[in-house]
């Protein structure tokens, strides 16, 4: 049985891995283009966050092409925004499409995940199948994150950025083809060896900038991250630790030490997204990065709430912070101007010996 999904970056590869483990498949979602974004803006409520609008644009486009079975995975843990469980919202929004069936995979633990899978595929799903499907899914999410992060660093560190781009493309293809955890382990080893062979620049990065913010917009490979990666190829180290991976590793056990780290700034039931962003900002400061870049989707409530908190963290640490709300992925002129100015600012500080 074929399903379709929306993309937050490369997360669809992991969702496809889960479905293939169960004998099903997934259509590759269309890349987000102007027309898809406009379609999402047209069908969404104006106050929905911009990431949500991109998602709706992809869903509407694929429904118009005849797809009906939507499979998606947004988060396995507590989340503050509607992206966490949008099935009812989607059913209401696309009620005109006969047979539209949205299903969010998840469950929090193996028991919950098994119940969830059986509700969608039927009672014949065995516990071992469920375990393998989720092991494949999480393995792919982790490896996609590792590739994304390493390649972004390599864009700055390597003297051959074209080879980095080629390596990233091939790694994504291999992860997509890997049928299970053992194959993923082999892909991981191949990737490490290939990445270690890339030629490196002689000089250290001119600047180190830590990126925090909305996981969904940060996962958008074709929009803001294309601009970010272009800057990295100019010799500036851009590092981010958020991403889709965080959302599937967000159980209370993993969140507890992060909450402790953020206790001076986050007090009352913060969302997963806020905890990760805050903790990562504090990590970047501890590692003496030159600046913090906060990127979030316009209308994203957790990240909007986080903005003044990050500002306080930056003020306390005397580290420059630039917050960018992405409200239209095609307004790249303003985005680039702000980033250029931020880099000029950090360079001026560094050249005068001003450090955080």
């Amino acid at each position: 049985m074929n399903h379709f999904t929306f993309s937050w970056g490369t997360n669809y590869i992991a969702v496809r891995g889960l479905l293939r483990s169960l004998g099903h498949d997934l259509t590759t979602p269309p890349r987000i283009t102007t027309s898809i974004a406009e379609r999402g803006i047209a069908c969404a409520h104006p106050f929905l966050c911009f990431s949500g609008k991109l998602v709706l644009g992809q869903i509407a486009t694929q429904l118009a092409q005849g797809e009906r079975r939507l499979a998606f995975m947004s988060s396995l843990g507590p989340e503050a925004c509607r992206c966490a469980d949008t099935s009812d919202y989607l059913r209401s929004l696309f009620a005109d499409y006969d047979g539209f069936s949205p299903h969010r995979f998840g469950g929090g633990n193996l028991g919950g995940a098994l119940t969830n899978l059986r509700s969608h595929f039927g009672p014949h799903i065995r516990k071992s199948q469920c375990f393998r499907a989720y092991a494949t899914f999480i393995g792919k999410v982790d490896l996609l994150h590792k590739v994304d992060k390493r390649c972004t660093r390599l864009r700055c560190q390597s003297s051959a950025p074209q080879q980095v781009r080629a390596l990233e493309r091939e790694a994504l293809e291999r992860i997509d083809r890997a049928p299970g955890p053992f194959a993923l382990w082999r892909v991981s080893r191949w990737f490490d060896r290939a990445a270690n062979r890339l030629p490196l620049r002689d000089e250290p990065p001119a600047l180190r900038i830590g990126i925090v913010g909305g996981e969904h917009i940060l996962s958008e490979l074709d929009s803001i991250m294309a601009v970010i990666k272009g800057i990295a190829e100019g010799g500036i180290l851009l590092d981010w630790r958020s991403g889709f991976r965080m959302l599937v590793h967000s159980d209370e056990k993993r969140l507890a030490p992060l909450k402790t780290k953020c206790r001076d700034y986050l007090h009352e039931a913060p969302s997963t997204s806020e905890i990760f962003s805050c903790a990562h900002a504090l990590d970047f400061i501890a590692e003496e990065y030159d600046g913090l870049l906060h990127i979030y989707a316009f209308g994203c409530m957790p990240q909007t709430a986080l903005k003044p908190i990050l500002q306080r963290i930056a003020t306390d640490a005397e580290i420059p912070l630039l917050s960018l709300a992405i409200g239209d992925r095609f307004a790249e002129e303003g985005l680039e101007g702000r980033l250029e100015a931020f880099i000029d600012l950090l360079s001026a500080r560094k050249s005068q010996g001003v450090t955080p």
Partner: protein
Amino acid sequence: MNKPIWIGIDVGSITCKVVALDEDEQILASTYRRTRGRVVDAVKEGLAAVGDVVSNRRIAGCATTGSARRFVGALVGADVVTNEITAHARAALALHPNARTLLEIGGEDSKIVLLRDGIPTDFAMNAVCAAGTGAFLDQLAGRLGVPVETLGDLAGMSTRDVAIAGRCTVFAESDIIFKQQAGHRIEDIVAGACRALVRNYLNDVGKGKNIEPPVLFLGGVAANEGIRTAFAETLGLPVTVPTHHHVMGAFGAALIAKRRGIVESTMRTLDAIQTSDFRPETFVCPHCANACEIVRFVENGETVGHLGGRCERWSAKRPEAVPAVR
């Protein structure tokens, strides 16, 4: 040998500013004009006006800034293309080395830059709304049927506080209509709108920023005495409007070009720019699903460069892919 000059060009959403700078970093000539949607014509007119004053000088360097900086850089063959925040900071520090806060309001952008010990240490720009910018004043002037240049004088004649909603230009217009119907004087409405713009600015770009004196107010909107007064009253600080407040971006760009130590400028001659039929065309790149809109520069019937796109295919930064614009 003719004495050298450095040219700075700042083209934003509404206006085009051109400055010529001498060896002592003094402004020899400057122009400020509305683009009215015709960027090429505005740049040609601006350069012609400056060229009349400095015709006996040698152009030693040129830099462009503003939201049209890349396009204009291709048009004139600029040596440096820089962002407007850096350009404004450079200009402000050249005139007022002790400045600690820059407030700048342009046509559709507004920005705040914090300076400490002679370097910019923090900045912010408006995000997704133009309510705290010159566009607000343009709409106000249009609604009241008065030239935008007279708003400052009108605000100065206000005798009574009138509260105007400033969170959105559309809601502000509704509010102004209501205040007119309620019989408020136009001078009081204009002063109320100036305070609304300042409130919006400080709640958006100024939020959380440590605004310390000396405070400089830059940009074309700084000519409006009503806005300057509203800033001073709201902040409780003196707000200085520098002499060249309206061309500070172009001044800063020219300074950056001068201090770059350019050996031989790539800028085209002023005559070549004036006689050029340089024009932009757009097309959608067919090579992938991104469908990027690409700007193609055409001159004398030939493609001389490209701008735009999310990959390196059309990037003007890669000379092997794109012939240099000369």
